[in-house]
């Protein structure tokens, strides 16, 4: 059986890597971030995590319901 991917962890991981990379570039002096940009960046990261969490939960709930359904 194919192992399913945890969408929330995957999306969160990608978002965190993206934000971490931008922060790394800023802290190493390669780019200069403004307060507005950083705020938007973090909001986007949290938004992606919440969205993925919501979608993942819907799928989980659906899977649970599928398991609970009696076999015909």
């Amino acid at each position: 059986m194919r192992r399913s991917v945890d969408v929330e962890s995957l999306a969160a991981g990608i978002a965190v890597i993206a934000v971490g990379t931008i922060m790394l570039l800023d802290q190493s002096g390669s780019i200069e971030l403004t307060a507005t940009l950083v705020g938007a960046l973090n909001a986007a990261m949290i938004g992606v995590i919440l969205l993925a969490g919501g979608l993942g939960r819907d799928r989980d709930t659906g899977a649970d319901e599928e398991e609970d359904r009696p076999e015909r």
Partner: protein
Amino acid sequence: MSDQNPTPETQPIEPGGSEQDGPKRLLRSRDRMLAGVAGGIGNYFNIDANIVRIAFALSIMFGGLGVVAYVALALFVPEEGDQPGEIKPPVIQRSRALGIAAGVAAALFVLSWGLADFDPWPFDRGGWFFGGPLLFLLLAVGAYLVVRGTGRGRDLGWLGAVLFGLAVFVGLGIAFAVAFWAGATGHGVIVASLLIGIGVMLVIAAFNGGARWLIAPALVLAVPLAFVAATDVSFGDGVGERQYRPATIDAIPDDRTYELGIGHLVVDLRNIDWQSGDVVALDVDLGMGQAAVAVPEDLCVVTNISASMGAINAAGDHAAGFDTSHQINHGADATPRLELDGEVQIGEFRLINDDDADIDDPHPWDDDDLTESDARAALEEACVADPADGEAEEDGADTQRERAGNACRDRERR
């Protein structure tokens, strides 16, 4: 994994606990305009629900306590079921996600409000009710909701859940502070690398069952680092309280700069005997906290003040938000003159142009003697050059040369 609690949507009343036999229970009513809270209270006390609704509406004018109470009751009070005798559990128990979200929201709200303007009992300012005692109460409720939302609340009991939740918050708070400290002391690259590492672990774990718990530490690292990145705040310039009250222009540092990393920076220039012809270009830089500069009423001040994240209150002018700035009297050449270049990354920058105002007074413009418009007008008026200014400036330059000459002669005599 299911998001839903095992708690049934409705539950029968226990034998002997019916509305007829047992003690009366407060339930949200099905006769509702919003969440049925007013209707429920009306039923409970046997009064017209409209009276309760009016009371809630009026309470908004008394610090907003009614709004907080309404939301709390809507979340925590059970609801009348569809069938007579049925009771639906409180909203907060129906969904784990809702419990966690409400808990985190309560904690974030409490922390952000509490850190921004901590006042144990702000009734005297006509503000909202949220004071110090409520801050801790809400934090405890938030902790309880988070722990309960994770499913552990039932095993721990309410007190254990509150203590466990508070411990988790404190732990995350310490990690937050450490990340902030690391970023502000020039170790942001390490924190950013850790963040990327956690991201990689999350991606790998996603294919092995997931590791959602890693999201919390990732956010705890990302948010403070974002603050540091956005504001360039640095602990390197010092932390704490700094007060400077130079008595002469010569007492101002040679580089004409006062700076502080984090804390409260006060620069009071009112003791200086400003002479015509005096021109001082001064930098006041603060990373995080509050910077206050006080100047005499009749001194011409040319301002160029900026705040990355926070507020500027300059001689009655207010500006707040992200990347805000304040300029006034640009191009003025009246003397004596202060050319103030102020910068605060996170916090507040205040410029007070009043001879008598207390520099520590958070609301100096509330006094009858000094209104906000007066302060602004005084600042502009001080920079209006009169015809004698040209001569005065020359005289001032002569005076300065004379002072310098006297100082040289004094040194030679010694």
